[in-house]
């Protein structure tokens, strides 16, 4: 009896100490971390759905290997069809009904814009969003939102630097989609060119996504006499622009934004021989690139695909993307330890130091701080040789 009461007493004393160590917000317990997500599994952008599926597969692997600090990841992902109103509906459901600890990799610039204020008002992290817009790096006004991939302005900067180095007498023509995404790229390029922007850029033309073709714009840009063409377009228009420029005999140096580098759905429709010489950027290892055939990270990724995501296409770079971003999140959650609050998730996401994901290109590391919400800020240039992209030059970082 006496022994029992001692045991009871010690239990009472010990309990508060344990509670003090472990801190939980909604969606977490000793056995679970609940993570929310929206992805376009249907609709016009459903090619991106591969990302959500590969992330789910990655978490299945983590759970099978014991989870994170003993907790299983519960990934709740909904289809928003790339429609912002549906994103809002789904994200509210995730936060208010499913009680997730945070949302992760919600996809699309318009979709994330629609929930941007809501997440920050609710003080629930909107972590590593799947879009390259620059506005996600604004910790002062939106401390609960963070991007992941190199943003469009960073990429524009890199092109500007390359133009200044290789073609100081460039006459630049720009074609861009008339929205946040297109303007972000143009701003990046102009900032990168600095004071020379005014004299080097000779023509700018925009298009709306509802237009059947961009032929008229290409003809317009060609007649400006430009010898450098900066192509800021989504896949369909990218293919049209590349083909039209070739067909009318315009042969500038062409920079193509990272959004439309798919060989299968952009360069093949445009014509592979018409795409020779295009320059763009990369930051993760392309699974179709022969140079990575014996790379340990890519081999590991192939095994992962085989075991946990057998339906996924091993030639689809989006599966590599999903894998890499999921690995980054796992690092953040490991750093969180037993303190699983909204605040600590954000604090840990903002204190990644030289973190390396092995599926990113060699030399690219992730750094964040409370003033720097841009995880990947380095890319490498690559050129199309008629068959595949070929990396050249060094990794270029724009980290300050």
């Amino acid at each position, binding site marked *: 009896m006496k022994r029992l009461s001692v045991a009871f007493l010690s239990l009472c004393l010990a309990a508060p100490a344990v509670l003090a160590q472990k801190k939980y917000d909604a969606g977490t317990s000793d056995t679970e971390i609940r993570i929310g997500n929206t992805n376009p599994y249907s609709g016009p952008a459903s090619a991106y759905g591969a990302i959500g599926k590969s992330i789910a597969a990655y978490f299945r692997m983590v759970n099978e290997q014991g989870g994170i600090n003993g907790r299983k990841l519960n990934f709740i992902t909904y289809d928003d069809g790339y429609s912002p109103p549906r994103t809002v509906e789904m994200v509210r459901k995730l936060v208010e009904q499913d009680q997730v600890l945070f949302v992760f990799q919600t996809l699309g610039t318009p979709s994330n814009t629609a929930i941007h204020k809501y997440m920050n008002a609710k003080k629930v992290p909107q972590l590593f969003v799947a879009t390259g817009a620059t506005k996600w790096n604004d910790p002062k006004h939106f401390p609960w939102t963070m991007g992941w991939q190199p943003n469009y302005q960073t990429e524009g900067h890199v092109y500007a630097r390359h133009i200044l180095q290789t073609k100081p007498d460039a006459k630049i023509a720009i074609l861009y989609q008339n929205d946040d995404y297109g303007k972000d790229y143009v701003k990046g390029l102009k900032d990168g060119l600095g004071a020379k922007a005014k004299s080097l850029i000779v023509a700018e033309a925009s298009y709306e996504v509802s237009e*059947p073709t961009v032929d*008229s714009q290409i003809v317009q840009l060609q007649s400006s006499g430009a010898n450098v063409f900066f192509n800021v377009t989504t896949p*369909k228009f990218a293919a049209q622009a590349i083909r039209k420029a070739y067909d009318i005999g315009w042969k500038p140096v062409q920079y193509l934004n990272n959004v439309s580098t798919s060989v299968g*759905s952009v360069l093949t429709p445009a014509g592979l021989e018409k795409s020779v010489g295009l320059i763009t950027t990369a930051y993760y290892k392309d699974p179709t690139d022969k140079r990575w055939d014996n790379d340990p990270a890519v081999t590991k990724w192939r095994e992962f695909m085989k075991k946990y995501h057998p339906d996924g296409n091993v030639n689809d770079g989006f599966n590599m993307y999903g894998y890499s971003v999921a690995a980054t999140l796992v690092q953040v959650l490991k750093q969180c330890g037993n303190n699983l609050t909204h605040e600590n998730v954000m604090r840990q996401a903002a204190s990644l130091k030289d973190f390396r994901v092995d599926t990113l290109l060699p030399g690219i590391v992730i750094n964040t701080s409370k003033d720097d919400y841009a995880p990947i800020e380095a890319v490498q240039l690559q050129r199309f040789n008629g068959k595949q992209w070929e990396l050249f030059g060094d990794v270029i970082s724009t980290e300050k």
Partner: protein
Amino acid sequence: MDAFLFQVLAGLATGGIYASLALALVMIYQATHHVNFAQGEMAMFTTYIAWSLMDAGLPYWPTFLLTLMVAFLLGVAIERLVIRPVEHAPVLAVVVVFIALLVILNSVTGWIYTYTLKPFPSPFPEEPLWGIRYMSPHEIGAIGITLLVLVALYLFFRFTPLGLAMRAAAQNPQSARLVGIRVGWMLALGWGLAAGIGAVAGMMVAPIVYLDPNMMGGVLLYAFAAALVGGIDNPWGAVLGGFLVGVLENLLGAFVIGNELKLSVALVIIVGVLLVRPSGLFGTVHVTRV
């Protein structure tokens, strides 16, 4: 000056796209007095059928003919199964049915074929013709095909008994029925023909804008503008309207108002025509005695 000429040529090329779809719109309007909002998606869907046939190894021209037949049957089937039940419903109900068709065809296609962009072959040579770099041989060929369809339609409606019966059924169903024309089947036939013309339009447009489930979205709007400018009941007018809209849009976009307002040109044309001259440039003015 060169820039001006090039814009005109590029405008004619896109105008050809608008013209071919406008023709299908006019066809269905002539046969049924409805404006079919699903016309673009029907054309897109049949183009996917053509793509499947070619993917299975069939050469271009047999595929072309086979697709026309499939499209014709599809058009007839849609009229029989979907449109006929709402024959006597108010106009608004019919519009709702058309829009439902549009959404259904779009998502079913996406579901079957995915939303990834696909290249679509052209029957015309790749090398520029007569040194004209600003219109690809395909674009020139597509305009030729549209004109051919136009002539064939004219001959059909003007000189064949069936064409006459169809015109009669559309213009005066009661009297047509009294002289023994099966009005219901004439309407179905009209749908079949329009779907066939749409299939031609789809196969001509796809090599230019690439094949994806949303390829006709933007085109349809311009085709409406084209059909209205020319007169919604006049095939010649619709084709001319297509070229007019294509060239006008390019010239205004490049030299006057800027690219941001190009789409507005189409909308202003639609509203303008309806306000000022609802029958279009070449349409017949209807006078009804009350």
